[in-house]
Structures are given as structure tokens and as C-alpha cells.
């Protein structure tokens, strides 16, 4: 045991000595929380809209004014001819164009019918959809204000309640996601690289010939990252409670326990990668290119998993971050207890066990 503590102390010294890396390790979660919390939003605001108003009458002016007043749009400028439309879109800034035909007001008043053409830049289909909806709603509002008749008969009033996240803040979704991402990163990459580095520089052999059990050598390498990661969990939670006003609804203790489990999964994944590779660069590229994007995608915090093709949905099941994401969401936001997440917990345990067994097997083969 004393030996073990000595080893852990040595690993700590390594980690603490590299100030630049340490700064990044602690700075990363902070930066991520701030970016997600304040910079990114899934809402569309201030989309640039251009008007080609051939009518220039009170009705078209009124609609433009209403659009300008909404936070969804920024009305850029007025076009003078239709040929400009194409070139304006190609410059890339404009997301939508609104075309009023000549005599818009007249046909609306006398013919009770007028047309508006809405052109959306559908390179981003979602944005195009949403913006079209927003604009339509504004125009319909205007139309309703015109009709003199009072309330329509037989009104059905839908009352929408937003559960868990009444203000539709992005934070509810991404804080669990960021936790999964940061832990994944710190643990997988750091362990993989630090073990491979010892292999590369030859110091691993020195450790392995020591009377110390090889498995303990490996474990002692992971301890500093375990502690660093727990600190990161703490800092993420503090930030989310005090900066983003996102309280932990469930048990904090349970959350930390589950985090420990997920950290162990990631550490074993790191060990697994390090056993299978022999150069730092390869280990880095694998843990980075191979882990980063899939973690973002298949954990489900950016993109809904149920939209994916069936095979990918199946694949998402072996991405540990997916299960951890569900767990954190359940505890933190929905405030549920262990009974709601025992299945996910079990899956993480299983993944960890499988990874550990495979790594130990190949580790032994290498030693033999």
C-alpha cells in the first residue's frame, strides 16, 4: 500500500508539473459552460431578412415594421429589382427575402386577397422552416388585425406548459452534455497519452520490472485523473448552479457516485487505447478524432438519437457518454432517484467490465 501511494504521488507530480496542460484541464469546462451558457442558442434571432417591396404602400410598410419589431429578424435593406435577389443570397448573410407585389394594399382592401412571396435560404432546412413559420405568424397576426369581425366562434385554446425547463433555456440540455464531454476527454485522452508516453520513452519497462504488480502501475496512473475529473464535476456543478441558475434537483451524492462510475469507464477506455497503440500521436488521434465527434453526436445532447438511422441508433448504445448523459439529466433536471436510472448504471458497469477484461488480457500478452 505504501508503494502504491508512492506511485500515485509520482504521477501527481507529473501532472502538476505541466502547468499549461493543467490550465487547459481546468479551463476547458469553464470555457465550455460559458460558451454553451451564453454564446450558443438553438433559437434563431436576428436573422437577416431582405425586402423587395414593389408596393411601398401602408400595408406593406406595416408588415415590414412588424417584422422589424420582432427579435427574430433584422431587416437589412430594400431591393430595387428582382435580379438582385440571387446575388444577395450568394453573399451569404441574408437568410430570407420577402417580396410584395405592386398594389399590395389595393388588392388586399378591394379584392380581399393579396399575395406575399417568402423566399428562404434553405441551405439550412431547419432554419428555413423556423423562419418561414415566424414570418407567417407575423403576417397572419397582421391579417387578423384587419378583420373587423370580432372573435371567431368555437374557439379551441391550446394551453402549452413547458415541463422541467419553462424558459426553454439551453442550459438544461447542455450542462449534462458538457459533463459527459469533459470527463470523457480528460480521462480517456490523458490516461491513454500518459501511458503510451511511458511506453514510447521506455520508462514503462523500468516500472514493469519493479516488484510492483503491473496492474497497480496502471491503476496508479489513473488516480490523478480520477481526482482531477471529480474536481471538474464539482466546478461544472458550481458554475451551473451559481452562474447559469440551474439547480441540482436530485441527490448530489448520487450524481457524484454516478460520475465516479462514468469516470472509471473513461479511464478504462483510456487504458484500452493505450494498450492497443504504441505512439502518442496515434493514441491522441484515436482518442480525439475517434472519440470527440462521436461523443458529441451519439450522446444525444446535440442531435436527437431517434432521428438517426437504425444502425446508428444501435451503435449509440455502446457510446458510454449516451448513458451518462441520460443519468445526469434524470438526476439533475428531473430530480429522479436511483430507481429511475438503475438500467443505465448497469450498462455503464458492464461496458467498464468488458473494457477492463480485454485490456488486461492484451496487457498480459504483451508482458509474456
Amino acid at each position, binding site marked *: 500500500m505504501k508503494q502504491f501511494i508512492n506511485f500515485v504521488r509520482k504521477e501527481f507530480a507529473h501532472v502538476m508539473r505541466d502547468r*499549461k496542460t493543467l490550465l487547459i*484541464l481546468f479551463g*476547458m469546462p469553464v*470555457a465550455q459552460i460559458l460558451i454553451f451558457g451564453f*454564446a*450558443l442558442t*438553438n433559437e*434563431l434571432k*436576428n436573422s437577416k431578412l431582405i425586402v423587395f417591396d414593389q408596393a411601398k404602400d401602408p400595408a406593406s410598410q406595416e408588415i415590414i415594421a412588424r417584422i422589424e419589431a420582432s427579435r427574430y429578424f433584422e431587416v437589412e435593406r430594400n431591393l430595387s429589382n428582382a435580379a438582385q435577389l440571387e446575388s444577395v*443570397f*450568394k*453573399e*451569404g448573410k441574408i437568410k430570407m427575402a420577402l417580396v410584395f407585389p405592386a398594389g399590395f394594399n389595393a388588392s*388586399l382592401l378591394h379584392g*380581399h386577397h393579396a399575395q*406575399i412571396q*417568402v*423566399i428562404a*435560404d*434553405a*441551405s439550412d*432546412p*431547419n432554419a*428555413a*422552416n423556423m423562419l*418561414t413559420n415566424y414570418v407567417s405568424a407575423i*403576417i397572419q397576426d397582421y*391579417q387578423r388585425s*384587419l378583420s*373587423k369581425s370580432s372573435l*371567431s*366562434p*368555437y*374557439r*379551441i*385554446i*391550446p394551453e*402549452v*406548459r*413547458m415541463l*422541467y425547463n*419553462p424558459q426553454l433555456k439551453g442550459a*438544461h*440540455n447542455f450542462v449534462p452534455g458538457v459533463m459527459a464531454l469533459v470527463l470523457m476527454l480528460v480521462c480517456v485522452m490523458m490516461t491513454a497519452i500518459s501511458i503510451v508516453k511511458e511506453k514510447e520513452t521506455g520508462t514503462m519497462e523500468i516500472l514493469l520490472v519493479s516488484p510492483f504488480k503491473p496492474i497497480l502501475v496502471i491503476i496508479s496512473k489513473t488516480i490523478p485523473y480520477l481526482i482531477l475529473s471529480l474536481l471538474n464535476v464539482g466546478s461544472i456543478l458550481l458554475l451551473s448552479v451559481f452562474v447559469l441558475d440551474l439547480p441540482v434537483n436530485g441527490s448530489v451524492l448520487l450524481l457524484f457516485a454516478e460520475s465516479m462510475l462514468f469516470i472509471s469507464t473513461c479511464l478504462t477506455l483510456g487504458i484500452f487505447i493505450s494498450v492497443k497503440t504504441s*505512439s502518442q*500521436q*496515434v493514441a*491522441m*488521434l484515436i482518442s480525439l*478524432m*475517434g472519440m470527440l*465527434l462521436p461523443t458529441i*453526436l451519439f450522446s444525444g445532447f*446535440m*442531435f436527437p438519437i*431517434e*432521428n*438517426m438511422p437504425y444502425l*446508428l441508433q444501435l451503435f449509440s448504445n455502446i457510446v458510454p457518454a449516451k448513458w451518462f448523459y441520460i443519468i445526469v*439529466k434524470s438526476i439533475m433536471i428531473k430530480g429522479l432517484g436511483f430507481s429511475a436510472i438503475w438500467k443505465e448504471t448497469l450498462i455503464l458497469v458492464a461496458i467498464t467490465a468488458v473494457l477492463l477484461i480485454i485490456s488486461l488480457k492484451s496487457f498480459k500478452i504483451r508482458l509474456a
Partner: protein
Amino acid sequence: MRTIRFLLQKEFRQIFRNRAILLLIGVMPVMQLLILPLAANYEVKNINLSVVDHDHSGFSQKLISKVTSSGYFKLSGYSASFKEELMAIESDRSDLILEIPQGFERGLIREDQQQLFIAVNAINGVKANLGGAYLTSIIRDFNEEIRMEMVPSYRFNEAPVIEITSSNWYNPLMEYQFYMVPGILAILVTMIGGFLSALNIVKEKEFGTIEQINVTPIKKHHFILGKLIPFWILGNVVFSLGLLVAWLVYHIVPAGSLLVLYGFSSVYLLAILGFGLLISTFCDTQQQAMFIMFFFMMVFILMGGLFTSIDSMPEWAKLLSAFNPVSYLIEVMRMVILKGSGWKDILPQLGIIALFAVVLNTYAIINYKKTN
């Protein structure tokens, strides 16, 4: 010039000797490009809907069938207990509850007005927003139908009507992949270029080979160029591979000219490689270089407009993203590939990226010290 030739020869030999890296450079982007766009699907459909029907009337049946036939919703639960369906939401089996109160049909006819209750799992804001909006608009349609049914004269009312005709340019089929593939390719090229260059000089430091270089009369800018050119070529190869995959698998043919596309990517690669080399000159170990690069990559990618719109960001974030090279590449890729934008349209972006390239590489040359 001869010096550069020898440097290039050496770099290429080292790159080609390291099969594992070469394989990763070739295979990983292609794999990711095959998988990620399928996964990065933001279209909101198949929303799981639970219906709590206390009314069991003709109206409630009609409404339910109208909702389920819309294509957006999948009926995942139907019962008379709100509590039961709330459990479904807690366990993520359901996204949305529609509650139809008892006496809905009768009340609507007698009292001229009725309420419907919708409860949305709003943890995922986008989905909640869209789901709620879809459902309310279906209910509105349903309401109109009821009116026409009940009040035959309603149809002929004299209220002015504005007809909105909407058209979706550049992606009429509304394929989300058309939007994602160019963006993801931009990120893959950035990651490959950024990481390889960031790790390169620092690897020579870690292995001590840089000492042997530093005692030679080699010029600093020759050394940096010798590092820059091989990765520049590799980057363009990855880029071409990506375009090929986009064409073969996703049938995305750039609407604009390839020349514009390659022109921009070439300058962009110089910038991102310069950034990597700069980091490399700052660090002492590969691990360090990688983490620092990673930090920037993460910020660049998240704020680069791949997943979320830059227009919607607060002003300070918009200002920051003006210094984010990745956002320019993503923007230009989408402009040229989807809209067919030409030189004239991308000139501002090209100018800024060229400036990045010059500044970063100059800084890297200055910061690479043969003597300390």
C-alpha cells in the same frame, strides 16, 4: 531552395513511414463523413406524443387522428390518466402530452370555447419549441375545420386574406445532409491540419532532433515552410477525399466552381497550419500541444456555426467569432457548394483568412527560436 527540397523529402519520408498515422489521416475523415451527417440530423420528426383523453368523443377522436396523420408525431401512449403519461415523459418514452378535458365536445358546442392542455418535455429546447408549435398549428387547423363544419357561412366571410407562398431556395428538398456535409468536412480538414501541425515541431523537441537542426545554418522560414508544405498537401488530399465522398455518397455536387473552393481551402489550410505550428513552437511536449490545440479547436468548432447560428449569438460572441477561422471555412463551404457563390461573394472571407495565414505563419517563424 535546395534546403527546402531536403526538408520536404525528409518530412514526406517520415509521414509515409508512419503507416498508422497515414491510415488514420485517410480513413478517419472518410468514416466520419459517412457516419456523422446521418447522425447529425436536426429534423424534428417522430415526436413521441402521449394523449390523455378524458372525453372519448367524436371530436377528440378526430383531433387525435389528425395529429397522428400529420407525420410529425408518433402516438406513444393513449390513456385516461395524466399521471401515467407523465411517467412516460420521465422515462423519456414520450416527449409531449396532449390532454383533452372531459366534456370537450359538449363544452365547445355549448360554451363556444374550450381549452386543451399540452405539456412538453422542455429539456431539449428546440424539440420542445418545434413540437409545441407543430401541435398548436395542427389544433388551429382542426379548429378551422370545426368552424366550417358548424357554421356553413363561415367559409364566405369577407375578411381579407393574405396568401403566403413560400419557396425554399438552394435546397428545395430540405435535405438536412446538404447543409451538414460541407460543414462537417470543414471541421475534419481543420482537425487533421491543426493537430498534425501542432504535434509536429514539438515532437522534434521531445525527441531532441530539433537540437541537431538548430546547430545547422538552416533558415527559420525554410524550416517552417518545410513543415507547412507537406501538411498543406495532405490537407488538400483530405479535402478532396471529402468532396469525393460528398459526391459519391450524398450526391452533393458543388454548385459553385471547384476553383473557388480549392482557392479558399488552400489559403485556409495555410492559416490553420500556421496556427498549429505556432502552438507547436510554444509547447514542450506533445501532450501539452495537443491539449492547447484541443481547447482552441473546441471553441472554434462550437462557435463556428456548424450546429447553431452565429447570427443568434450575443454581440460579444459574434465579435469573438470574427477571430474564428473555422467559422469562415464553414460559411464559405456552404456558400460555394450549396449556393454557387463565386470569387466576388467570398472575397471578404478570403481576405480575412489570408491575413490570418500571414500573421500566424510570421508569428510562428518569429517564435521558433533556434537560440534561447
